[in-house]
């Protein structure tokens, strides 16, 4: 670990070597299926995306994005069914407004809005998924690691790294 490395713990240093951390929130019914289709079709995809499956983009709290970017995740991608194709009829219509508002708000709060992207990918659009994720990943690689809002590199990085398990010895 060098001084210039913004990541202070061994776990994140390892992750930094592997690539950047991109968080993908995918709706269960369309985009998760779309990513699956892309996999089945053996389309080449970037490896730095970590996927969180959500029931619907309507579940997507804008604060998920805010929290990730504040704590230093390098990019957040949200993807769901095309508008008017939502499994729950209107979830993505709610999401569209919220995410668009968030996108405009992020840069005001000094978080680079280019680190957040949302897209609509259906379950059959494996090719489109490949394109969306590759383009976004390239963009994040151009931007480099996200230092979050910390004043000193490494400050407060721990909460996202998974808390250490404390085991209390059990009396026999």
């Amino acid at each position, binding site marked *: 670990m060098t001084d210039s490395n913004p990541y202070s713990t061994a776990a994140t240093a390892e992750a930094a070597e592997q690539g950047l951390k991109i968080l993908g929130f995918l709706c269960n019914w369309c985009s998760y299926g779309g990513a699956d289709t892309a996999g089945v079709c053996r389309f080449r995809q970037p490896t730095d995306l970590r996927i969180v499956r959500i029931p619907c983009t309507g579940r997507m709290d*804008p*604060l998920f994005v*805010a*929290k990730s970017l*504040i*704590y230093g995740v390098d990019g957040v991608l949200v993807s769901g069914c095309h*508008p*008017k194709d939502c499994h729950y009829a*209107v979830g993505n*219509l*709610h999401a*569209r*407004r*919220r995410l*668009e*508002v*968030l996108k*405009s*708000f992020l*840069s*005001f*709060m*000094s978080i*680079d809005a280019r680190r957040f992207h949302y897209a609509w990918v259906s379950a059959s659009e494996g090719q489109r998924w490949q394109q969306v994720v590759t383009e976004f990943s390239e963009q994040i690689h151009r931007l480099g690691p996200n230092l*979050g*809002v*910390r*004043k000193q590199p490494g*400050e*407060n990085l721990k*909460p996202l790294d998974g808390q250490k398990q404390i085991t209390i010895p059990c009396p026999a």
Partner: protein
Amino acid sequence: METDTMQLHKLVDEALPELDTMIGWAASYDPLRTTPIFIREAKSIPRLIWSPFCAQNLTGYLVKPPALKPADKHKRIGICVKGCDSRSLVALIQEKFVTRDRLRIFGIPCRGTVDWRQVMRQVPLSHVRSAKVEDNLLIVDDAGGTHKLNLEDVLARKCLRCRYPNPVVYDALIGEPTVSRITPEDIYRDVEALEKRPLEERLAFWQSELDRCMRCYACRNACPLCVCQERCIAETRDPKWLTQRMGIPEKFLFHFIHAIHLAGRCTECGECERVCPMEIPVALMKEKLNKIMEEMLGYVAGLDPTAIPPLLTFNPSETGI
């Protein structure tokens, strides 16, 4: 100003038999400050006042625990509102936290409220004996003599950029309607000034401002529209959004929670900023969100009691959003 207070006394006196409680402002320990008062008996009515020092938004008392509920359900609650407070009331009516016909609203056109911290910044006063506003001057008498201050220098920031000085909803109006101090294109000037700065400078700005935050949650507690109460995700353990660590990311996230939850709902009453003990411009975040709402969805919060706040609804036909 005397006449307005007298008119208020007269109207409250007439209305009191049908009121359970009357919420208004009363004189406090210092002429620059006022305190909320809850009136149930006619003998307390003379304590009610209206002056440019009545800064507090009283509508929070209708929803924040212990929320006022009339013991007799046929009685109403009387409340004094300025222009900005009346918009909070409209937002609460929209979201069905209060019912319009259970309220008796005494609307007061307001030419701006004095921020005592601004006054102290201009002249450090001690033992204030009297304070009054005449035209565009604030005249304060204290141990050091009489001070005349320019009103624009001592008004709260929200008052300088107030668009709705007249109540948008009321049963009785006290005094004469007044006009806005600002032209419509200047309303978001504070937000625009920050927007123009590069990202790094904005980061430095928010880091230095939010670094002072001690997460006392006064901004949240004072906000009449922060209605999650004990379920506020800033404090719940499950889901656990925030640790108790006092780092900058936690402070950013707390303010994000507060701001995003008010997106499209905030009526810019400025309570969050007024109560902040660290003088952080917390309302600036909500102003930016309101600017986005207005530009993107053409919505201004707290004007139409029948409207639905834009983030609580959707429009299938909107494209490009």
